[in-house]
């Protein structure tokens, strides 16, 4: 286990409730994780599982009717409790975020160079020309060919893969300690996706940057992660190293998700499926949220929350059937 001091970000009991006139929606229901330098954690889940909301809550990007509680300690301070002016300073310099749609995240009326330089000038107060020089280095860092020319490009003049690289360069502008990545490769073609995944892996190793990567794609998770957290109905149902989660599949949802993942080896066979659909976040069942779809459901699953069974540091399963085998051996 890592000593406490090595953890650069610690999220504790993060909950997000969307309060609307017609009722409350519980999108994130008590999420805990911590990350060391250079570590990549993937939050794996289907649409509506709360994975993107978790990231947006950490960046303070949720709308006013979102009620966020819990803690996210970054370099010793709880970023969820910071006043807006303080949060603006932290955003971009200590924690930054990349998105699925670079076209929507970049400003269409400024060149790539201007956007990156602006962030550096804002946070570090250096001159515009010095910031431009840094912007050029950053574009080279993310392997954009003919970077000097690309600096003067507007977002629409670049291809999808190039724009995604430019957005990564912008996110890295002030050397953040934590990068939050919200499905950054989902909209890309497969030959470009693998380039971006390799780039992110390399950057996190070289810069010692912790990455929280959100995806619904198990293949992408297997390529990028050190650790995986499987999310269902706003909770982590299983966490562990990428090998543990993909091989052991201790939670029935993880097992179902992996078994229903299509690959060529299954030709001619019926695919295993998880029956039904995820529960409504406005009316979560009182017990385990997965119980209505679970093949090995028991009576106790429907009445109360399943126990969190520990399998060692950073590895847990939220299921009554999970038995810690040789945990102390």
């Amino acid at each position: 286990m890592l000593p406490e001091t090595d953890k650069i970000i610690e999220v504790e009991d993060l909950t997000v409730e969307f309060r609307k006139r017609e009722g409350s929606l519980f999108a994130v229901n008590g999420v805990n994780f911590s990350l060391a330098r250079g570590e990549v954690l993937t939050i794996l889940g289907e649409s509506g599982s709360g994975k993107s909301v978790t990231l947006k809550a950490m960046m303070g990007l949720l709308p006013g009717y979102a009620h966020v509680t819990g803690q996210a300690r970054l370099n010793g301070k709880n970023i969820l409790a910071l006043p807006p002016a303080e949060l603006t300073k932290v955003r971009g310099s200590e924690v930054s975020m990349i998105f699925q749609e670079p076209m929507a995240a970049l400003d269409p009326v400024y060149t790539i160079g201007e956007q990156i330089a602006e962030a550096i000038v804002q946070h570090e107060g250096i001159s515009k020309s010095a910031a431009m020089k840094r912007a050029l280095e950053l574009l080279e860092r993310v392997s954009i060919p003919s970077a000097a020319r690309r600096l003067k490009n507007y977002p629409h003049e670049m291809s999808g893969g190039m724009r995604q690289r430019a957005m990564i360069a912008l996110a890295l502008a002030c050397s953040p300690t934590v990068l939050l990545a919200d499905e950054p490769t989902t909209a890309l073609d497969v030959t470009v996706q693998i380039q971006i995944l390799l780039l992110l892996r390399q950057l996190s190793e070289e810069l010692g940057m912790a990455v929280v990567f959100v995806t619904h794609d198990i293949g992408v998770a297997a390529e990028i992660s050190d650790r995986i957290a499987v999310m269902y109905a706003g909770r982590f149902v299983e966490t562990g190293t990428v090998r543990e989660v993909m091989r052991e599949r201790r939670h029935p949802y993880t097992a179902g998700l992996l078994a229903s993942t299509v690959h060529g080896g299954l030709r001619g066979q019926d695919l295993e499926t998880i029956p039904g659909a995820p529960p409504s976040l406005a009316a979560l069942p009182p017990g385990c949220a997965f119980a209505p779809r679970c093949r090995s459901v028991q009576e106790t699953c429907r009445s109360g929350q399943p126990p969190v069974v520990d399998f060692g540091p950073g590895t847990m399963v939220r299921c009554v059937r999970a038995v810690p085998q040789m945990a102390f051996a």
Partner: protein
Amino acid sequence: MFAASQVKQDPRDRGGLAQPLLIVEGLKKYFPVRGGVLNRQVATVQAVDDVSFSVRKGEVLGIVGESGCGKSTTARLLMQLITPDSGGLVFDGDPVGGPRGISISELRRQMQMVFQDSFSSLNPRMPIVDSIAYAPRMHGLSAAAARERAETLLAQVGLNPRQYSRRYPHELSGGQRQRVNIARALALEPRLVILDEAVSALDKSVEAQVLNLLRELKARLNLTYLFISHDLNVVEYISDRVLVMYLGRVVETGPVEAIYSRPRHPYTRALLASKPTLDPDRRTRHLPLTGDPPNPINPPSGCRFRTRCSFAQAICSEVIPSLLAPVDLGADAPTDHLVACHLPEAQAAFGEHDVA
């Protein structure tokens, strides 16, 4: 594996089992790009350029490729949703649109399509049962009979008609809506169904349910599928034969086993090597391909892949490669494996891009 013996005899069959259900010959579509103050044509997008293939009765033909490769334009051209610049279709021996062939409306009776966006392909102001019954009514069924047919179809795609038939599209989940779209496509009892990224927008656990449904319907209703997707895993799972497209042209075609285990075109190999692994101990270490696919406006001359190909030579920029049997054909190699590549050494280099 696909075998002709598995195909049931269809009473509507005209050409016999050996006659492909659909033959596509020299399909071409260029879109003009207008610009400038006078809105003159300034460039052309060569979306689909001389694409030929055939779909056998009872098979699943998969079309894979990245965005801009022309796979969806091909589907729309087949359905005659857009008019091809040139090229022709032959459906079960009958030329389409010609004086002695079948008309486009007859073709659409036998060939239907399911789109990726399950919401925009249903009328938001119609209960789903009416959406499904619409085409049969237009083709002469009484309102009551069309409705009954729609309810039978709903049950076939796994939605209880008593519970769901009066629902509107926004009241259903994505997976349920895609089931409705499949029912709508089947309402005219087509023989060929074009599935254009039909499962791409669904969550993984729902995608598996819909894929199972598609396989079940195919067996029960004696269907033939043209399955278009960017997802290499799904195409490998469901297809009997595969067509690989790059920038508007077919670069390789063959039985699914041959394409996935012995890919001959450098692009097919790079595409397969880019597929994320499901094994954390076999992560991708080396980039199979750098850069993005070029813009289909003014694509490279000759072989369109040459700008990203590590084998490219002078001939590749001068001559358009045609689809031919690969070199060094082994005795057990399938005869319908074709590749559009000039260079024997590039074709023989399979295995080189394997993940470390």
